[in-house]
Structures are given as C-alpha cells and as structure tokens.
C-alpha cells in the first residue's frame, strides 16, 4: 500500500441512488489490500470527505463489509438533497460521487 497515494490506486467504486440516499461501494482490486482498506476507510473518513454535501444534523453514514468480495458498501442518507426528482443538482442521481471518494489520500 505504501507505493500508492490515492484510494483510486487500490480500489474501484460504483454509486447507486434510492430516494435522497446514495450508496457507494468501494472494492479492492487486490483482495490482499482488503484488510487494510477495511481498517482505514472508516465511516468517519468518508463522512469528513463529503462534509460539505452531507447534512450534519441528518442520519449518520453507515458501512457494510463484504470481506469475501473485498468490498465495503457505504450508505449516505440525505446526500442527494431531495432525491433525483426534486434535486437542483446537475448530477441529481449522485452518479459521480464514487469518483470523488476515490480521490482520498491513503
């Protein structure tokens, strides 16, 4: 992991939407990186990264672990601000959020 600088170097990601909640999967390219990924990529780190987009008074970010797939699944309630149908955002689905998460410095 030491030769890598960003999350994008060791993991890939996909974003889905339901109502005004987004979910972002983070999947290790190499399953050998998963234990460190799971230890390092905490709910606190993800929450801090998206602080400007999340409602601080809203429900907390949740994390699910799928060790056999080398994958984490983050659920971010409220980040779509009204959801696809009412949002004023250019990307109302939040499809681009996962790519923004991959910029995290390891």
């Amino acid at each position, binding site marked *: 992991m030491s030769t890598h600088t960003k999350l994008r170097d060791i993991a890939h990601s996909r974003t889905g939407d339901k*109502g005004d909640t987004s979910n972002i999967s983070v999947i290790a390219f190499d399953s050998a990186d998963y234990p460190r990924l799971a230890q390092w990529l905490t709910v606190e780190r993800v929450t801090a990264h998206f602080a400007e987009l999340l409602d601080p008074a809203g429900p907390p970010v949740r994390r*699910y672990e799928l060790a056999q797939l080398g994958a984490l*699944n983050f659920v971010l309630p409220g980040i779509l601000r009204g959801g*696809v*149908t*009412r949002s*004023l955002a*250019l990307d109302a689905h939040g499809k681009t959020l996962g790519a923004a998460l991959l910029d995290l410095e390891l």
Partner: protein
Amino acid sequence: MKTIRIGAGAGYSGDRIEPAIELAQQGELDYLVFECLAERTIALAQQARLLDPHGGFDPLLGERMRRVLPYVGPGADGTRRRLRIITNMGAANPLGAASEIRRIAAELGLPGIKVAALTGDDVLATLQQWPEQTLDNGATLSELGDRLISANAYVGAEGIVQALQADADIVVTGRVADPSLFLAPQLFEFGWRVDDWTLLGRGTLVGHLLECAGQISGGYFADPGVKEVPELDRLGFPLAEIDAMGHAVISKVAGSGGRIDTATCTEQLLYEVHDPAAYLTPDVTADFSQVTFQALDQDEVQVRGASGRARPEALKVSVGFLDGWIGEGQMSYGGPGAVARGRLAEAIVRKRLQLTGVACDDIRSELIGVSALHGDDLAQRAQGEPWEVRLRVAARCATKNDAVRIGNEVETLYTNGPYGGGGASKSVRQVVAVASLLLPRDAVALQVHLEEVA
C-alpha cells in the same frame, strides 16, 4: 439438468435497442426482459395518458417490438429455444401497450402470438378512499389534493407467473419490482415454492444483477488508465444461464463489446443496495451478504451464495405528485479572470432574484467548465485556475412564473452583467416528485388479460 437462459434487453426506458436484438438473435434465450421503469416514469406516463387515453406506455415500445417480435416463439425450424418477452413497458397503460403489440404483430404477419397484460398495480382509486394515509415525506394524501398524479404498488413475480402459465409469449406490465421481472420465469420454469426463501433469494440476485442491462457487462465502469473496457460503442447486454437450484452463470454474446468479470459483477451486486443482508422485494427479503463470484472463462462469471428470508408483509407504493417548477439559467465566461467574473455574475443573479421578489423554495448556483469556449489549445493556457467557467443557477419555485424568472435573470447578464458573458441558456420544467407508502397485500388485486394475435 434443465437450465434456462434469460437476457436483459434494456436497463432503462431510453436504452439502446441493437444489443437486445443481438441477444434475441444469438443469445439462445428462453426469455428476454426489458426493464424500463425508473422511479417516476409511471407518473410521467400517467400525465401522457391524461392527454392521450391510448398512450401512457413506453415511447420506445413500438420500435423495440417491431425489431424483436420476429424472434419470439420457437423459430421457423423449431430447433432453437422458444423465446418469450417480459417487460414493464406497459407503464401507466399495460392494456394499451398489449393492444399496440398485437397491432404490430398483425402488421408484421405474425399470427398466433399470445400477448398478456398484467393490471392491478395502479392503486390510485383505492388510495383515494384512504386520504389520511401518510407518505414517507410526512405529507398525507389529502394534503396533495389535485397535485396527486399516480399511485402504483410494486408487485412481485406472481402475476407474471400466472401469465406464463396461461402460455403467454409476451407479458407486459406496469409497476413490478425490477428483479421480479426476472424471478418470474425462474419460478415458472422450475416450479419453485413461493415460500422457498433461499431459492427466491437466488433468483432475485440474478434479477438484480441483470436489471440494469449493460451495467454488469462493462457499462458505468470504464476509467481510462485504471479500468479498461473494450468496444463500449457496441456494448453487449448480459444474459444468465440458471439451473433449478438457482445457480447462475452471467455472460454475453461472443464478439459483442464490453467485459464481464468479478469486478463488474461486484460493482453491480452493490448497486442501489443498502444493507446487503436485507434487500427487500415483494417476493422475498434477499440476502446478498455472502455472495461470491468466480470467473469461469472470458466474459463468463459464476454466481453463488445468495439466500433469503420471508418476504415483507406490505407492498411499497410509489406515489407521483406535482411539486412546483424548476427554473434554470446558464452563462459562460472565458479567458483570464473567468472565475472572478463567473462569481460576480452569480452574486448579481442571486441579489437580483431577491430584489425583484422571486419566491424560491430552494436555490443553488455553481460554476461548470473545461473546454467548451475556445478549443483545447487555448484552454491549456490556464494556469492554476480554469480557462473558462459556466455559471449555472437553478431554483425550485411554487409557480411557473417565478421559475421562468431564474433563467431570465441569468440572460440579462448579457447587457447588465460582467465583461464577456456568452452563450446564455435557460429552461423551465415542472417537477414530478415521488414519495412512498406501504399498503396491505390484499388491497392489490392482480389480473392477467391474455389475447392472441389474429
């Protein structure tokens, strides 16, 4: 051991058509499923039906059917598998859609095709008897009043199974939970018990993996330099070969573009999933938390490990309603100082909207841009800050009049705003929002209407 082959012909209403035809031609399919209903598609279709009582189904239904109907059935020589079609393209008018399909089949000279429409998901009339029901957004139905457009229950696989038992070649529905469109042929072909939660969980996983079509075969995946996908311009749509134990192999037609491997499958497994151990559908509470993928060959992945628990007691109902208007305006600034001029323009518009008393429930503004104004060469002169920016102001307003003024205010920047604003654009659209509530299962009565093409 008997297997069935199910292909995904569409991942959303406007999806590409040739990959579906490629599957019908070369996929050796038993079923081709077109999933075409997003959250608020039915509400929009209901509005279309108010204008035209014969409309209200998917706008691409006719074109898709014209192309795929010649492959329905066992084929002229009877050697290939019998192809059947399942689709939710009926949207707000499954009966109208079925009639349109029969009309096209007759026109193509394809008599004998049996077309079934499934109705009963539309519960608007039922809900109007219960005005005090509360939606998940906190409002009651009576508060929505005449802004209420549509109410459709997410129904499960059961109605489609009945249509297949009646020997339908084509089943066209309104709102059915997406994975249930794929679970239904598995239930029908393998005779699974409707309370065998493990098998239903497995069949639901197959549906979940296929329902977005190209998203498991290399779409929504490519990231140059990190994740390469060949020939995205002719992306192949996926198919699953499934056995009676619900074990499945995901693949695509040989020679089509895209890629299917454990990475694309894992991304799609978690797409739009919250708790992987509790994926709720009308048929089952599916558990994807122990799923594994194994690559068998190039573009061929074996899926294992889904299970399930008892289905939810109630059905989820999606309610569509009118929710004001969104007005938007954009204007570009380029060259040195573009960001500062864009920010100045933004501040002017926001202040003008206040000064002129435009009532907005919510407003946002931002700067967009890379290489739209002066080509790539000049754009590369930018040092430290963008060469160009495009101001975008969007607001949600209760009235159309106020929403129109958002774009108008941005446009006035031409002659009243900062130096060098160009390329103004503006738009206004009515907001059709959705919210949900839960309904007891016995409040929904499904009905299959089967008719043969004369």
